[in-house]
C-alpha cells in the first residue's frame, strides 16, 4: 500500500491556494488516503482563517475622517479669525503689522551638498546639514521642527526650554547645551548625540519614558520597531564630522550610508542586491570627494559594481 507523507508547509501551500499542480495532486491524494490527518488539516485551516487580514486604505479613511471632523470644530473659529483681521485692517495698519509679525513662520532649508549656520534670536546657534529643513515661529525661536540633520549650541535660558521635534515625533529638550540631531525621512533611525550639558529625549507617541543623556552619550530610535537605545559615543564621534566638512561613518550599513550620500550629492542610490545593502563600512571622507571616488574606496573591502542610470538619475549598486 502506498504511504503519503505531507509536510505542514505543503499543506499550508494547498490551503492558502499558492500550491502548484504537483503539490495539489499530492495533498488531494493524501486527503483520500488512510494517512490523512484530519486534526492537522483543521489546525492549518484555522491558522489560515485567523491570520486573515484586510488591508484597507488608511490614507483614504484619514482623509474622510478629517473632512468630517474639521468643519465642526475649526471653521467657525477660522471665520471669526478672518472677521477679526478684517476689523484690524480697518482700524489701523500698525496693529495688523504687529499681528502678522507675531505669527511669522520661519523656514530654513538646505539642498543637497549645502550647509547653513543660523543664529536664532535667543542667541542659540544652529548648523544645518545637507538636504535638511528647520522651521520655527519667530515669536518662539526655542521650539524648533527638524527634518534632516542639525547641530545645536543652545543659549542658556532656564525659564524657556529649548526643544527640537522631528517628523517621527521625537522631541529633544535642552537647557544650555550642545547636541546633534539626525532624522532623515528615508532613514530607519533618529539619532541624538550630546556633546555638552544635558538633554531629555522624549516622544508623545513613540515611547513612554524619556531618556536623559549626559555628555558623550547618544540615543538611537528605531522607527520601525519603536525601540530606543542609549549608548556611549566612540571617541572619534565626539567631533560632529559633518560640521568639519567630513562624511564619516563607523560600522554603518551601506543602506544607511546611502542616505548620507544622497543628502550630500543629491542622487538617490538603489540597491539591487540585499547583501551589499546590508554590509557594513567604516570610513571618513571630505565632503568634496566625488561620489565615484567614494564608491571606488568602499569597493576595496567589499566587491560591488556601481552605475549611474542617467534616465532615472539614480545610482544602481549590485
Amino acid at each position: 500500500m502506498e504511504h503519503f507523507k505531507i509536510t505542514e508547509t505543503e499543506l499550508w501551500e494547498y490551503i492558502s491556494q499558492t500550491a502548484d499542480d504537483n503539490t495539489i495532486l499530492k495533498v488531494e491524494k493524501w486527503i483520500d488516503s488512510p494517512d490523512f490527518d484530519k486534526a492537522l488539516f483543521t489546525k492549518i485551516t484555522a491558522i489560515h482563517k485567523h491570520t486573515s487580514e484586510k488591508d484597507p486604505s488608511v490614507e483614504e479613511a484619514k482623509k474622510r475622517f478629517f473632512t468630517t471632523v474639521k468643519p465642526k470644530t475649526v471653521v467657525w473659529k477660522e471665520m471669526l479669525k478672518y472677521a477679526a483681521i478684517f476689523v484690524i485692517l480697518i482700524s489701523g495698519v500698525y496693529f495688523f503689522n504687529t499681528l502678522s509679525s507675531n505669527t511669522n513662520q520661519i523656514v530654513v532649508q538646505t539642498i543637497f551638498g549645502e550647509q547653513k549656520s543660523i543664529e536664532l534670536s535667543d542667541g542659540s546657534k544652529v548648523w544645518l546639514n545637507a538636504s535638511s529643513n528647520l522651521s520655527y515661529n519667530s515669536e518662539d525661536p526655542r521650539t524648533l521642527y527638524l527634518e534632516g540633520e542639525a547641530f545645536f549650541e543652545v543659549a542658556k535660558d532656564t525659564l524657556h526650554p529649548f526643544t527640537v521635534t522631528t517628523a517621527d515625533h521625537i522631541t529633544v529638550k535642552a537647557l544650555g547645551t550642545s547636541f546633534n540631531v539626525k532624522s532623515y525621512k528615508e532613514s530607519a533611525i533618529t539619532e541624538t548625540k550630546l556633546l555638552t550639558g544635558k538633554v531629555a529625549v522624549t516622544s508623545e507617541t513613540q515611547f513612554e519614558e524619556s531618556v536623559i543623556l549626559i555628555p558623550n552619550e547618544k540615543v538611537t530610535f528605531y522607527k520601525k520597531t519603536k525601540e530606543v537605545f542609549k549608548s556611549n559615543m566612540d571617541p572619534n564621534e565626539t567631533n560632529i564630522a559633518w560640521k568639519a566638512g567630513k562624511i564619516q561613518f563607523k560600522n554603518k550599513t551601506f543602506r544607511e550610508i546611502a542616505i548620507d550620500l544622497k543628502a550630500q550629492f543629491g542622487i538617490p542610490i538603489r540597491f539591487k542586491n540585499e547583501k551589499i545593502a546590508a554590509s557594513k563600512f567604516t570610513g571618513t571622507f571630505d565632503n568634496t570627494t566625488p561620489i565615484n571616488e567614494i564608491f571606488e574606496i568602499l569597493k576595496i573591502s567589499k566587491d560591488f559594481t556601481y552605475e549611474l542610470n542617467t534616465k532615472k538619475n539614480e545610482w544602481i549598486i549590485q
Partner: protein
Amino acid sequence: MSVFLYNLVICSYANYLNKKHTSNSIKEAKFSNLFDRHYNRLYNYAFKVLKESDPSKELTQETFIKLWENFEHINQSERSIESFLITTLKNKIIDAYRKKQTREKHTNVYALNTSIETEIDKQWELIERIEDIYTTLEQKTTDIFKLSRDKGLTYKEISQKKGISIKTVELHISKALAAFEKGLKDYL
C-alpha cells in the same frame, strides 16, 4: 483711546485664536498618528465579526470621530486612548450585530441565543494574540509569512523576491506555522 483699547482686545483675541489653531494642528497630527497605528487592527476587528467591508469602515470612522469629540476629556496616555478606541468600537459592533440579527431573525433563530459579547471579546483576544505571536517571530519570518498569507505569493515567487532559496522560504513558513500552532492552541 477707545480705538486703541478696542484694537488691543481684537489683537489678543486673534492671538488666542491663533494659539487655538496650533493646538488643533497638533491634535490633527496626533490623530494622523493614531490612524496609522490603530486603524488597520480596529477595522480588522470589526470585519472579523461583521464580515462586511462597508459597515466595518463606517464603524471604525465613527469610533475615531467619537475619540476626536471626547479627546480633551480623557486621559491622554497611550493605553487609555487605545482602550477608549477598543471599547467604543466593541459597543458599536455589538449594536450593529444586534441590528443585523433582528433583520435576519426569521432566517436564523438560533443565532439569537449565542452570546455576542463573549464572541466579540474572544475575537479581540485573538487579534491581540496574533499580534503578539508576530512580535516573537524574526522580522524576516513575519515578512515571508505575510507574503504567503496576505499577498498570496507562491514559495517560488517569495524566494525570487527575497533572493533566498525555496528551502529557506519553507523553513520560515514552518517556523511561523509552529509558532501559530503553539500560540493559538486554545483557538484551533
